[in-house]
């Protein structure tokens, strides 16, 4: 695992494409965010398409009364027959009357609300003034014209940053882990960090809107997800300092991520080794089983979640897979610098998309596995190319040592299935 920098992709050329992008918009993030912040509600101000997207992307209508809804704009709002702001106030009153447990309400902008220039930040201020202290109202955009898939989480978290409490004067250094993670993963990471003596660890987003982590110049933050450009900027504006690190995917990635925190907090190497030895050992042991199946297999990433580069790094370095093309909707060179340095030189990177041309490249390369969105998976399977849905990677605990093998298994399962089937 040494000498990675010499092999890196830091300055590698990137194929930039502009054509049809087969990606979700940022509204999709609501599907996991509304489960994560348990007293928050997400009200999309948009069209019937927005409502239909969220319920379709959620797969099935699982929850009788979820913590999200859509205020559907109709022709009366557009024709000026109704004042859109009055209508929005009415809908919010109706919602809050029905759901008194809501403490934080996000007004989520959409393509139509952006195009008609409905000012949701002013609406949020106005509604906050009416409903505080019971309910705080924030806004962000999840529109497709502004955001791609996971950028919706970025926009949501960035909107939270200004309301984070200021850290107490004279507070010691604290660590803020940023990016939605499964609760089981948060608990594991917290135990590991505490085990090496980093006591003041907070997570963002918090599980409750009432438990916002404080932020200030003594806050060091560590990104747990690679798609948080705006959130990072907002945190830095509050004085927080980023700890550069690769992302906690795989045994190596998790170790490097923890190591970055340990170095920033001056943890002694022995103490770090003591804290990580056992989980690192069992992660490696559990990964070995999947390496047999994945080693030498080729993989092609369609752009979707911005997790593509860290995943490619994990699969190439720890699972010995061959990278055919690594597509990402957006390449944040600074946040991904450590990841890019670990990719083999010459890796084919692409940013943006022209889906038809990318499908041509995938068909020509016939990789063993394609990571793509739900719209493309079955058509590729029908052509005999194995696929892994990228959205599953957002709904499954995959970070940290004890999930490393689960992550590998997500990629091994479709290959395993193809080996079993005789029909």
């Amino acid at each position, binding site marked *: 695992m040494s000498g990675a920098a010499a092999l890196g992709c830091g300055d590698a050329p990137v194929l930039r494409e502009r054509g049809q992008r087969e990606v979700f*918009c940022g509204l999709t993030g609501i599907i996991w965010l509304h489960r994560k912040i348990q007293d928050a509600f997400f009200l999309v101000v948009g069209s019937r*398409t927005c409502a*239909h997207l969220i319920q379709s992307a959620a797969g099935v209508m699982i929850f009788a009364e979820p913590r999200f809804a859509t205020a559907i704009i109709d*022709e009366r709002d557009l024709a000026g027959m109704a004042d859109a702001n009055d209508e929005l106030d009415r*809908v919010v009153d109706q919602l809050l009357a029905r759901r008194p447990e809501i403490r934080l309400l996000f007004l989520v902008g959409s*393509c139509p609300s952006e195009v008609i220039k409905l000012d949701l930040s002013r609406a949020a201020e106005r509604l906050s003034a009416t409903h505080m202290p019971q309910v705080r109202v924030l806004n962000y955009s999840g*529109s497709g*014209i502004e955001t791609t898939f996971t950028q919706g989480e970025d926009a949501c978290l960035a909107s939270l940053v200004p309301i984070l409490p200021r850290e107490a004067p004279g507070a010691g250094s604290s660590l803020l882990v940023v990016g939605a993670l499964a609760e089981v993963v948060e608990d594991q990471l917290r135990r590991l960090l505490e085990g090496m003596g980093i006591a003041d660890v907070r997570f963002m987003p918090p599980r409750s809107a009432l438990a916002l982590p404080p932020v200030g110049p003594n806050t060091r933050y560590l990104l747990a997800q690679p798609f948080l450009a705006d959130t990072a900027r907002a945190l830095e504006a509050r004085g927080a300092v980023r700890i550069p690190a690769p992302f906690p995917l795989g045994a190596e990635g998790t170790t490097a991520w923890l190591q970055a925190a340990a170095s920033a907090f001056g943890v002694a190497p022995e103490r770090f080794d003591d804290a990580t030895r056992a989980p690192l050992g069992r992660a490696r042991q559990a990964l070995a089983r999947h390496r047999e199946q994945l080693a030498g297999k080729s993989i092609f990433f369609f752009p979707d979640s911005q997790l593509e580069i860290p995943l490619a790094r994990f699969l190439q370095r720890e699972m010995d897979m061959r990278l055919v093309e690594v597509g990402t909707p957006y390449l944040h060179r600074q946040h991904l610098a450590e990841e890019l340095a670990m990719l083999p030189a010459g890796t084919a990177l692409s940013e943006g998309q022209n889906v038809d041309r990318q499908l041509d490249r995938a068909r020509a390369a016939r990789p063993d596995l394609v990571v793509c969105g739900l*719209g493309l998976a079955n058509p590729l399977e*029908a052509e005999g190319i194995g696929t892994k849905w990228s959205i599953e990677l957002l709904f499954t605990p995959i970070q940290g040592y004890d999930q490393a093998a689960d992550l590998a298994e997500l990629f091994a399962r479709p290959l395993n299935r193809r080996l079993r089937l005789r029909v």
Partner: protein
Amino acid sequence: MQLTLWTYEGPPHVGAMRIATAMEGVHYVLHAPQGDTYADLLFTMIERQQKRPPVTYTTFQARDLGGDTAELFKNAVRDAHARFQPQALLVGASCTAELIQDDPGGLARALGLPVPVVALELPSYQKKENWGAAETFYQVVRAFAGPSVPPPGTTRPERAPGARPRCNVLGPAALGFRHRDDVAEITRLLAQLGIDVNVVAPMGATPADIARLGDAEFNVVLYPEIAGQAAAWLARGFGQKATKCVPIGIGGTRDFIHEVAALAGVDPAPALAGAPSRMPWYTRSVDSNYLTGKRVFVFGDATHAVAAARVARDEMGFTVVGLGTFSREFAREVREAAKLYDVEPLISDDYLEIEARITEAQPELVLGTQMERHIAKRLGIACAVISAPVHVQDFPARYSPVMGWEGANVLFDAWVHPLMMGLEEHLIGMFREDAEFHGDAAPSHLGHAAFLRPEPEPVAAAGPLVWAPDAEKEVGKIPFFVRGKARRNTEKFALDRGLATITVETLYDAKAHYGR
């Protein structure tokens, strides 16, 4: 502005996609922002289509709005034509593109491509999916069959002596509830009557097929929500009559056969002979006695809801306690039907209102859509799905029509399955104290019944094995359906190693040990 949790219908351009995807040889270029491509998954995931829908999206972003989105659209049309070589192009806008008013129809025509262009104007802020499907099918029919419309006053030529009557079958589309199998069933029924099918549309039809719709003598309209408007135009243009009866249930199928036989001038007797369905006997069998008077609440698209209510009362012996639809375009039909059952019709697409009405009606069975399935699950009521909106489960691998004789069999099975069988009901009445027959028991033949029961207490491990509190908490985070296995594996792992206390570390060591 309307507060909406769940929607019964997508936007109208999704209706247009259902037509384009059902047809062959057409391509739909949709002016739409990035993200609207989600609609592809409806077809590839829910319906398990093996091909991508024939749709190209412009996927414009904010930076394009300042520039020339019209040029972006023209390039997308040109590229789509070059790559997919369709026989015809459909063009239109989704909700956001409608606001920027680029005129997709005008732009596409100006390109002078060598194929016809059908411009779709689907007002996203007024209309919904089924309307969009009907309007798109109508525009397609008008565009391709229009040139063959005879001059006004022309009478239809008589059928040649000895020739078989011919009809079109209209309405089956992509993402429809059992459309694939209904078409097969009804085509078979028509063949028994000696009637040939000229064209099935939109499902499987090319623009050239649409152009010869006028060759048929009459139209069979299977799904009025989708084909009603086109059939009305065909009636005006070609003098083709259209069927009104929907062949769902034994009675519905009989009425349909009589109607079709009259339109074709053939004898209905061969197709009616013996009514080759098991349903009439099954429902008369003594075993079905327990179905008598069961209270059912019916909700769906108008066609399926009205038909289901009739089957429920007349063929299953149920009592209809509610009838409604989410399609306002067909409210009149549902209101008429509701009078037959002496119930207040429910015309609404407000999920919460429908939930409230179902709760109030206290039915024993809900016949609804996937949305009502969730309402019923929450209320602990049995439910069978009778209508779109659909879910992957509504595209079964087996042949499973809801129309015709076989369709009646399917309805009987599908509606009886979620109910508790008669004898089992008695056992619960008799043996309330029995662990298996307690009051909250679900039908025993349904596997998920087990999910309703509380998790059994952890089995006390042999020896001095103790779960540390944090490990106990951690194991609680594991999904309940695998929790028992995780607990057993961890205890075995600890016992094998002579550990006295199970810590979080032990839990994960065991997880790594057993792996998958």
